[in-house]
């Protein structure tokens, strides 16, 4: 296995596969511009960019900012990595011309102590070479994974706005045109059935087909599957445990991509590959599924969304994962595959108990299926979907409570200002899903029961809020007390009722004050 580091080829077949890119850069390659600030993907000081020819984004080939502290070296096979040292253009007489991102940050006094700076620069590099930065919130999102304790961020945001989408000429632009194509993707996959890296008694296998995966997994039944690694790597960097056997899903085309299927009934279903990066899902969800986009907006850092995957977020089965409530409310199912075949399971049946799933031995989550709402015709049933995440800090935080609601009403709501009398519509169906309130992501069945069949009224709403007490009893921890969680759980439902009744848009505005946007 190999990757390219600042355009130089690095062989990684004979190295401890649990070595993180950050440790490799600092300890082996002598590139110490990239810093460790937390070793858990929360500060961004270790950010580098990766060009992945095998995984062109749905916005085209692009550099992706990622946390090098969470990236295991073999996961870079076939990729091109650039660090802060690899940005400058070599000029005449050895002169080095900084990249636009470097100049922009320097000239705006966007560095004070300078320790977060290389990471900020690399996030700016992604911004500079992106072609899909259309809205102001995306610039916030691009930088929210880079903590700075000195500047107060104003100059950093100014630099980001200056470089976003600028696509400067130079070394990285040439890299994109040379290596961003499909041919390069083929080269990365190569002919091998299984790519391998091994060292220090540990081994990683990266099969390039499902058949090879089943065979490999049968040989190494104790192996851990790894894809984005944003959760698994914490085992290495925080708990100092090193798995002896890893199987990477990076090279499996079967687990990638997404498509919308239209059934003969006209119903549409969105199939999302389990290893699709969350930043790609987010972009597609913007048009297909605004409530999922809303949940992903404040899901985590851009760097995390660039590596983390939908399948990974579901399979960790964390009670505070954010995509589970969003997908539970949407009525999603998961396709589970093993050597024996495939089965489709309603998502709520995937979560068995605290961090345990219904996956059988040597079975994996291959795809997620999200039923999409049909466009509403006048006078017909209409579905309303919203997702909410409440945390101490809006960006890059784990939720105290997250929730997602989907209700189907018997007919469209009258415009709020109209007040043209008449009974409100009836609630035909309701799916109310919560995270952070129980040991698993959960639906609030009692509250759903209070809504279904009732008129869409504040009375029914209050009955549903009261019923939440039967659905779950949250606990207290450092993210919030039981009182806070229970209160917010009810208030989110109230906020949902008012948002829907007021006809508020499903998408969040730029810099919303709160999860509920009224």
């Amino acid at each position, binding site marked *: 296995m190999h990757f390219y580091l600042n355009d130089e080829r690095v062989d990684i077949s004979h190295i401890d596969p649990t070595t993180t890119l950050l440790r490799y850069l600092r300890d082996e390659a002598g590139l110490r511009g990239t*810093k460790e600030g937390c070793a858990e993907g929360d*500060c961004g000081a270790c950010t580098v960019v990766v060009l992945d020819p095998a995984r062109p984004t749905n916005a085209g080939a692009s550099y992706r900012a990622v946390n090098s502290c969470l990236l295991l070296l073999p996961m870079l096979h076939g990729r091109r990595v650039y660090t802060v040292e690899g940005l400058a253009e070599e000029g005449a007489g050895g002169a080095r011309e900084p990249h636009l991102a470097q100049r922009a940050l320097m000239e705006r006094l966007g560095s004070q*102590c300078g320790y977060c700076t290389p990471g900020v620069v690399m996030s700016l590099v992604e911004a500079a070479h992106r072609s899909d930065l259309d809205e102001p919130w995306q610039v916030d999102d691009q930088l929210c994974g880079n903590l700075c304790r000195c*500047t107060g961020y104003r100059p950093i*945001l100014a630099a980001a706005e200056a470089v976003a989408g600028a696509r400067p000429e130079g070394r990285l632009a040439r890299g994109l045109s040379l290596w961003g194509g499909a041919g390069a993707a083929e080269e990365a996959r190569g002919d091998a059935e299984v790519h391998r890296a091994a060292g220090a008694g540990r081994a990683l296998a990266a099969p390039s087909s499902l058949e090879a995966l089943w065979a490999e997994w049968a040989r190494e039944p104790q192996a851990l599957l790894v894809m984005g690694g944003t959760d698994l790597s914490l085992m290495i960097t925080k708990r100092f445990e090193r798995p002896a056997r890893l199987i990477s899903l990076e090279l499996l085309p079967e687990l990638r991509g997404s498509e919308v299927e239209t059934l003969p009934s006209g119903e549409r279903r969105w199939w999302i590959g389990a290893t699709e990066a969350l930043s790609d899902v987010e972009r597609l969800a913007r048009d297909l599924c605004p409530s999922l986009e809303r949940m992903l907006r404040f899901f985590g850092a851009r760097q995390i969304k660039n590596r983390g995957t939908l399948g990974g977020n579901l399979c960790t089965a964390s009670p505070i994962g954010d995509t589970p409530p969003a997908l539970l409310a949407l009525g999603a199912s998961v396709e589970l595959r093993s050597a024996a075949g495939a089965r489709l399971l309603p998502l709520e049946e995937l979560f068995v108990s605290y961090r345990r799933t219904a996956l059988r031995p040597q079975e994996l989550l291959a795809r997620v299926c999200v039923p999409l709402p049909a466009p509403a015709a006048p006078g017909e049933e209409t579905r309303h979907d919203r997702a909410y995440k409440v945390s101490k800090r809006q960006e890059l935080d784990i939720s105290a409570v997250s929730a997602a609601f989907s209700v189907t009403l018997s007919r469209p709501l009258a415009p709020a200002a109209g007040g043209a009398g008449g009974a409100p519509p009836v609630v035909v169906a309701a799916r109310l899903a919560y995270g952070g309130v129980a040991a698993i992501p959960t639906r609030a069945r009692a509250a759903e029961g209070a809504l279904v069949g009732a008129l869409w009224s504040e009375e029914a709403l209050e009955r549903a809020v009261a019923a939440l007490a039967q659905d779950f009893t949250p606990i207290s921890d*450092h993210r919030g007390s039981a009182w806070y969680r229970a209160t917010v759980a009810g208030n989110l439902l109230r906020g949902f009722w008012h948002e829907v009744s007021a006809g508020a848009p499903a998408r969040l505005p730029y810099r919303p*004050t709160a999860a509920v946007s009224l």
Partner: protein
Amino acid sequence: MNSSRHTPLSPAGSPLHHDALHDSALRHVTGEALYVDDLPEPPRTLVGWPVTARVARGRITRLDVEAARAAPGVRAVLTAADVPGVNDVSPFSHDEPLLAAGEVFAVGQVIALVVGESYDACRAGAARVVVEVEPLPALLTIEAAEAAGSYHGTPHFMRRGDVDAALAAAPVRLSGEVRTGGQEHFYLETHAALVVPQELNHLLVHSSTQHPSEVQAKVAEVLGLSRSAVVVEARRMGGGFGGKETQAAHVACLAALAAARLRRPVKLCLNRDQDMVMTGKRHPFVSRYEAGFSAQGDLLALRVRAVSDGGWAADLSGAILDRCLFHLDGAYYIPALEFEGRVAKTHLASNTAFRGFGGPQGAAVIEEVLHRAAERLGLDPAAVQRRNFYGEAPRDHTPYHQRVEGDRSARVFDELTARARYAERRAEVEAWNARHRWQKRGIAYQPVKFGISFTASHLNQAGALVLIYADGGVQINHGGTEMGQGLHAKMLAVAAHELGLRAEQVRVMHTSTDKVPNTSATAASSGSDLNGQAVAAACVTLRERLRPVAARLLRCAEADVRFEGGRASDVARPDRAVPFEEVTQAAYMAQVSLSAAGFYRTPDVHYDRAAGRGRPFHYFAYGGAVVEVELSTLTGEHRVTRVDVLHDAGRSLIPSIDVGQVEGGFVQGLGWLTREELVWSPEGHLKTHSPDTYKIPALGDAPRAFHVALLTDAAQEGVIHGSKAVGEPPFLLAIGVLGALRHALQSARGGAELAALDAPCTPERILRALATPPGA
């Protein structure tokens, strides 16, 4: 976001008072800037891993390191028994053992240091260290310490007038409690040291420290050496904020102990979790107060008892408490008062300096008092603030009997409230609130008056050493350290100004104890005030030595020589000039000394703590902020939406640098007051020990509309080139966030009185405040 820029970059003449980049800016963005962990390790370098206490208080009944010593790759396991000198790293109180001796006083206290070939080897070794501790009752809150009578040091009192009589006679009486939480520094670079043995028993210590001289002193004491045997070099820090004022010594001494013992280079860099668990934070405070006001909102009397949580060792807690008391007056004159301050001794990490050094905790108290009074009286809090500012005698005396001369509070208030349209926006906010059920806005004014000087008066001294080479190259050395605040950029500008050079023609050297001895910490916002004077003095000495040389070259009178633009010229005939390097070459040939030391001590500062009386401050720095917030009554989430600041940096040495300090200080203060919550388990374990659980502000928390301006025509007499210190004062501007939240809450609660709003105002605290009955 936008911020005003006053002056163009790259001036032709003196770089003083013009915008400039950070001197390391290019090195920062290219990754060339080196921090301690980035330095190339000398051959045979070992690393260290501390073994720390897991109970908050107890007696060590067994400590067995033999199995760990035998672990593969482990070269030593050091305990208190291995300390050849004094087993203490405290700044002066002698209560902080480097390695626990017999007892442990906090979770995270270091019991042993494993030294080995790699971190993996050290960790494996650490797992074999046997520590048995018999737990003893631990005090984990201020209340518990108070109940047990557990304190550090002695109480501090300030008194004026008959406070009981004044309170009794006051038409409006308030009493309550203000609680502000601790704050983790979260410098992006954690504590780090690399110690390299030199010839004989000498040591070179690379330390991420704000106080190289103290690291030097502590290493020498721990090892039983003379300070002359230890050189401490501090190139730059990846942030300090006070957290590396005293506590860098601990990590450096551990590494030094190992390096001296093994005669090998040793590096010790704490990882984030270790750093957050082991090291101290901003002091939490609980302050109980009684206040009396006139019906018009004049503050008549104030009694405050402020108690901080010092943690297990004294560290700088006493001085931090003092500065809290020095700022309980905020910007306001208080006719009758009694302040009492105490430091509770608990069994948590030993709290330490953090930007503001107790000042923000003090100012937060009086701001809450004034806001409550205004709410009680139905007045605009800004009007109450305005009428209580210091003024003419007798309204010009602080609680510690220093006169306030040339108070700028009213000027800043009037200029800023006009510029930020405070009054109109307050009306707009209230109209908006009347239309919105689920979200409420609030707006507030926040004044800052911050005393500048170390309150331990002898610390107000600084030295510099300037070297000029025959070819005209200039190196400056000074005792200050660079932690991102732009001190070096300012010192370059000061030196260049005095020598008539461009800043790029001067090089600032790494701070090192073998260039300038006995330095004070770069702290108390004093870095450029003190070191600037010392650098200027050295440069003036050298310039005046060069003057006769230049006069000979120019064949003019010495008094007519002017050094400017990299040349010496004849004032009478400006066309006649010689390049600086020609003058220095001639000086060398003429056997003129081209190195000089400079020294400065702040005149006229003194304080008698027992009497609560003196002149602790050379001057005051001022500022004002208008802060607007919006909150959700459903979730308690909130956002600072707009901030306007007018800050007094005197005649700013480098405005662009100072604006950066103002913006960064504000956002750091915003984090302290709203986002950053430290949570401990009932056993005294810090639960929030990484950015996963401890949330400093992220980019989206900074106000989108952020208008920062520096006060103009504001030169300060008696300070380097008319400037003012700017490191800490802007931090206090963020207290306006609490005022604005109070305003929004008052709106949401239909005007019902809210007695207390504890910080940090997390979303949960806001939701609780919304659910709190009136007056409770």
